[in-house]
């Protein structure tokens, strides 16, 4: 079984982001970038499927600037076999990404595509579902467990009230929730080996898909700041404030 793992380069999750003064977006120059955390879960799951003997080859793909090859190298160091970088200098929306990934899927013919459930920059939570819709494949979103048996993927999903398990006929799409696994750290020898693993680069124009954005960003603003609060001395004081000042209890 072949597994495809799409990954995204995003601002590191620990960075306190800054909105640009002109309201055109978020400052990204000189900011630490990393692999999207949910994509680490997706890679880890693919590697575990290979270690269990369910998967034979893992291919990672990223669509973005040339610099996105760093996150592909990270994926390779975690155990991915080879990588594809689709370069573009423009920001591409999930719809465009899903269309581009569809072309990659049609070429690579994976049996399973594992994505992160959302990217922590645009917080869209859409690419996996859109790709599944475009391909006409089943989808197991927000997965906390994946079991492969008899050409099926049994996926346990995190839903609002608890957990739900669905069975998908392969090929299928899975999106990883944080609870799916604990991603491994790439060891230094594996980081060295990853430099020698194959990474092919193509341009998004080669895929011949329409990735023109459908959304225009009118403005990006900081959310209203909360007023600084008061540190209180005792539980009695807290209760008094909640009753008489805030009137919430």
């Amino acid at each position, binding site marked *: 079984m072949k597994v495809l793992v799409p990954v995204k380069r995003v601002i590191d999750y620990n960075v306190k982001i800054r909105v640009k003064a002109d309201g055109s977006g978020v400052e990204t120059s000189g900011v630490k970038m990393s692999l999207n955390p949910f994509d680490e879960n997706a890679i880890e799951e693919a590697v575990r499927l290979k270690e269990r003997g369910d998967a034979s080859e893992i291919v990672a793909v990223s669509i973005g600037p040339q610099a996105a090859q760093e996150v592909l190298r990270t994926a390779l160091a975690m155990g991915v076999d080879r990588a594809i970088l689709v370069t573009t200098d423009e920001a591409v929306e999930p*719809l465009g990404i899903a269309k581009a990934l569809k072309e990659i899927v049609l070429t690579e013919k994976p049996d399973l595509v594992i994505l992160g459930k959302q990217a922590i920059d*645009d*917080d869209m939570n859409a690419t996996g579902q*859109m790709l599944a819709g475009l391909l006409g494949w089943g989808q197991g979103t*927000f997965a906390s467990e994946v079991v492969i048996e008899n050409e099926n993927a049994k996926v346990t999903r995190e839903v609002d009230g*608890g*957990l739900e398990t669905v069975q998908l006929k392969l090929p299928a799409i899975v999106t990883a929730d944080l609870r799916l696994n604990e991603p491994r750290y790439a060891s230094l020898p594996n980081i060295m080996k990853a430099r020698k693993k194959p990474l092919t680069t193509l341009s998004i124009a080669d895929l011949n898909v329409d990735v023109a954005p459908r959304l225009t960003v009118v403005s990006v603003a900081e959310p209203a700041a909360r007023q600084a*609060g008061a540190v209180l001395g005792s539980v009695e004081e807290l209760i008094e404030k909640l009753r008489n000042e805030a009137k919430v209890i």
Partner: protein
Amino acid sequence: MTALVLLEIENGAVRQASRSAVAAASAFGSVDVLVLGAGAEAAARLPGVARVRHAESLSDSIAESASALLASIAAEYTHIISAATANGKNILPRLAGLLDVQPIPDVIAIQDADTFVRPIYAGNALATVRSSDNIKVLTVRGANFDPVASEGGSASIEAIALDTSATIPSVEEISVNLSTSERPELESARVVLSGGRGLKDAANFKLLDPIADKLGAAIGASRAAVDSGFAPNEMQVGQTGKIVAPELYVAVGLSGAIQHLAGMKDSRVIVAINIDPEAPIFRVADYGLVADLFTVLPELEQAL
């Protein structure tokens, strides 16, 4: 303009988050709703709903058939909306893929029929975006729209079915394992009491129960508490868990990481109880107690 809202029904009633979605949809003109499975009667009683479209044989937990049905009637609508719940986030982007439109998730404000505000970067920035798609597919954040009432309307109900010639990939629901709780639903509770890693173990997490009972509060948790096994996943509040905006949010023994704040910083009043005066949670708290939660919690229980 006519909007279609995909409703979620729970125990025979329309979920509060869905009623918020109906309120948001009324900004676009006439509102139809779609009910999958049982519960069309409850939907018909929502004020402001023109008609209920009812597909009794489908389930809203199977995105493959739900999105195919939505796609088959989408041309009748300018906006297709659901609450930004697990089901909404599962179904609507797939629908958007089928319709070749870019979805607009987690909308917190509607400026006009094409222009929407949504949080990005874990709520640290708000993006205003204008869509050029003919059909807008959006999920809305319940906490930002006052829900319509449960009663007062009398919409007509009409049955619709999925075209049996449509090719739907094979997906089967095997099991559902929902937590049973007597407490109010986290996303709609007036008061939320949340615990973090500071509670140290699952047994201590139970210290929150009597206080939650007295406040009529739902109990939430930080990711650290969930990952440590103190609380089940569905109690997680944050960027990757539930987004809440109650009247009162009490954070106990949780530091207030960016990802947690994303899920609760729109609460009206925030109280932080933490032994570390440097904890980031104090930067958003209206009232803070720098103290050992193991002393504070029993005192709080007594005092309430």
